C-alpha cells in the first residue's frame, strides 16, 4: 500500500514538472519580452542585454526553468520585474482570501450534496427524489457567476441582508467575515451540490439493493443502521468526486471573486495579466495547477484505498 501511495505521489510530481514546463514556455510565448516591458519601447539593445543578464534571462531556457522551480520549492517565487514586489508575498496575501471562499463552498457542497442525495436515495421514485432530479439539472446548468449576480441583486440590494461584495478577513470579526464570503461560497457550491447529490443518490440506491442489505433486514437490523452501513459502502465514489471537485472549485472561484469584488487570487491574476507581470502570473497559475494535481491525486488515492476492488489494479 505504501509503495502504491509513493508511486502515485511521484507520478503526480512528474506530471507537475512537465505541465510547469509547458506553462513556463507559454508565459514566454506572448508578445513582448520582460526586458521590453520593464524598460519601455525606447530601451537600447545594450540596456536590454544588461537587464536580461542581470535577471538570468539570457541563460538557456531549461536552466531558467530548473532555477525557478527550485526556488519555488523553497517558497521563493521570485521578485516581480514590474512592481518589484515579492511574488510569494503577493500570493501569500491573496491565497487565504480565495481559500476561505473555496473551503466554505466545499463544506457546503459536501454536507448539502450528500444529505440531499441520501434522502433522495431512500425513496426512489418518491416526491423528494423527483424534486432532487429537477434540482440537480438546474444546479448543473445555472452558471455560478450568474447565480452570484442574482444573489447580489436580491439578497444584498433588495433585502439588504448581506453586503453586496468586498471582503473582511476573519481577524476583523468572524461574523463579518462569514457575511462577506457567504454568498460567494453558496454561488460556488451550488454546482457541486448537484454533482455530489446525484452521485450519492445513484451510489446509495445501488448499495441499498445489495444482498447484504436484504440479509440485514431479514435479521431485523433497524432501518437507520442499515442505511448507515449502506452509506459507508456508497461513499467511495462520492468522496472521489468531492476531491476532484475541490480542484475545480479554485478555477471557478476566480470568476466568483470578480462578481463579488473579492481581493483574492483572481484580482492578483488579472492584475498580473494587465501589467504583463509574467513572474506573478506564472506563480499563480503554477499554484493553481499544483492544487489541481494534488486534488486529482487525492481523488485517485481515495478510490484505491477505500475501494478494495481497485487496490490490486495499481
Amino acid at each position: 500500500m505504501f509503495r502504491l501511495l509513493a508511486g502515485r505521489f511521484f507520478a503526480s510530481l512528474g506530471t507537475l514538472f512537465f505541465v510547469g514546463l509547458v506553462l513556463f514556455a507559454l508565459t514566454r510565448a506572448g508578445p513582448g519580452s520582460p526586458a521590453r516591458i520593464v524598460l519601455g519601447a525606447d530601451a537600447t539593445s545594450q540596456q536590454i542585454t544588461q537587464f536580461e543578464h542581470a535577471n538570468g534571462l539570457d541563460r538557456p531556457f531549461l536552466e531558467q526553468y530548473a532555477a525557478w522551480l527550485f526556488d519555488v520549492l523553497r517558497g521563493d517565487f521570485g521578485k516581480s520585474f514590474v512592481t518589484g514586489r515579492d511574488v510569494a508575498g503577493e500570493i501569500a496575501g491573496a491565497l487565504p482570501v480565495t481559500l476561505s471562499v473555496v473551503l466554505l463552498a466545499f463544506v457546503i457542497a459536501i454536507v448539502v450534496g450528500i444529505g440531499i442525495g441520501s434522502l433522495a436515495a431512500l425513496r426512489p421514485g418518491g416526491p423528494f427524489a423527483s424534486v432532487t432530479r429537477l434540482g440537480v439539472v438546474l444546479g448543473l446548468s445555472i452558471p455560478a457567476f450568474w447565480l452570484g449576480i442574482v444573489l447580489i441583486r436580491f439578497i444584498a440590494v433588495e433585502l439588504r441582508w448581506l453586503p453586496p461584495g468586498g471582503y473582511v478577513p476573519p481577524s476583523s470579526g468572524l461574523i463579518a467575515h462569514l457575511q462577506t464570503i457567504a454568498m460567494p461560497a453558496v454561488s460556488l457550491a451550488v454546482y457541486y451540490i448537484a454533482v455530489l447529490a446525484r452521485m450519492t443518490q445513484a451510489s446509495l440506491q445501488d448499495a441499498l439493493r445489495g444482498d447484504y442489505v436484504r440479509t440485514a433486514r431479514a435479521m431485523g437490523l433497524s432501518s437507520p443502521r442499515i442505511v448507515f452501513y449502506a452509506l459507508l459502502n456508497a461513499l467511495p465514489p462520492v468522496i472521489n468526486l468531492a476531491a476532484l471537485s475541490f480542484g475545480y472549485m479554485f478555477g471557478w472561484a476566480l470568476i466568483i471573486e470578480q462578481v463579488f469584488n473579492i481581493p483574492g487570487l483572481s484580482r492578483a491574476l488579472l492584475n498580473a495579466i494587465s501589467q504583463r507581470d509574467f513572474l506573478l502570473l506564472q506563480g499563480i497559475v503554477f499554484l493553481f495547477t499544483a492544487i489541481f494535481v494534488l486534488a486529482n491525486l487525492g481523488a485517485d488515492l481515495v478510490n484505491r484505498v477505500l475501494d478494495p476492488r481497485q487496490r490490486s489494479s495499481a
Partner: protein
Amino acid sequence: MNRLARLARAADWTGWLGAAIVVVMIGAALLAPLVAPYDPVAISIEHRLSAPDAAHWLGTDQAGRDVLSRIIHGARASLAVGIGAVIIGALLGVSAGLFAAYKGGLGDQITMRIVDGVASIPLLVWAIAIVGILGVGPVTIGSLQFPNEVKIVTLVGCLFSPVFARVTYAVARRIVGADYVKARYLQGASHWQIALGEVLPNCLSPIIVQATLLVAIGIVIEASISFVGLGVQPPQPSWGTMLSDARNALYSGEWWLPVFPGIAISVTVIGFNLLGDAVRDLFDPRNEARTLVA
C-alpha cells in the same frame, strides 16, 4: 430503425425537452440575422434602458441596444465555442485513445501519460492566463482573420480531449482483444479497417454522451471567460459580456439586464444536459461515459 423506434419509445419527456431546446438554440444561432428584430450592435441613445415592452420584448441596455437581439446573436459565440471545442477535443482525444489502445506497449504508455498530463491542467485558470498572455486581439492566419474566441475554442478543445481519449481507450482496449476482432484479422482486414470499422463504432455511444454534456460545460466556460473580459470582445454580443455590463445595473432598477442573458445561458445548458442524460440512458446502458465534473 430499431434504435429509432427504441428512442421514440424510451426517451421520456425531459430528453425531448432537451432536444427541443438544443434545436431552437442552434436554429437561433444559425439564423440570428433573420430572426433578431434589431441590429445587436446598433446604438440608440433615445431608447436606452427601456424596460421590456412591445417594441423591445426584453428591454434595451445602457446604449439602447435591443437585449433580445443581443441574446440571439450571443447564441452564436456560445454555441460556436461549446460545439467547436467539443469537436476539437473529440478529434484529438479519440485519435489518441484509438492510437494508444491499438498500438499497446510504449506508444500506449507515452500517449496515455500525455493524456494524464493534459488532464491535470486546470482548464479555466489556464484559459484565462493564456488568453491574457496572448492578448485579446484577433488571430491572423495568412489572409484570414479570426476573432479572439478562436484561442478559447482551441484551448478548451485541447483540455477537453482527455475525456474523449480515456473513454475511447477504455472501450477500445476491450474490443481490440476480443475474439471477433481477431477473427477479422484472420480474414485479412487491415489495421485501419479494424480501427475504423470495428473499434470506433463501439466507442461511439459513450463519446456522444460525453460530447453532449461537454458542450454544456463549454458554454458556461465561454460565458465565464467573456464575463472577465478575455473572451468575446465588445461591441460583439455575448451572454458573458452582457452579464458583465449588467453589473452596473445591479443597484438601479434595470432587472432585465442581469436576468435575461443568465436565463439564456441556463436554458441552453439545461437543454444540452437533459439531452446528454437521455442519450446516456438510451445508448450507454453499461455507463461507460464517465461522470463529468468541471
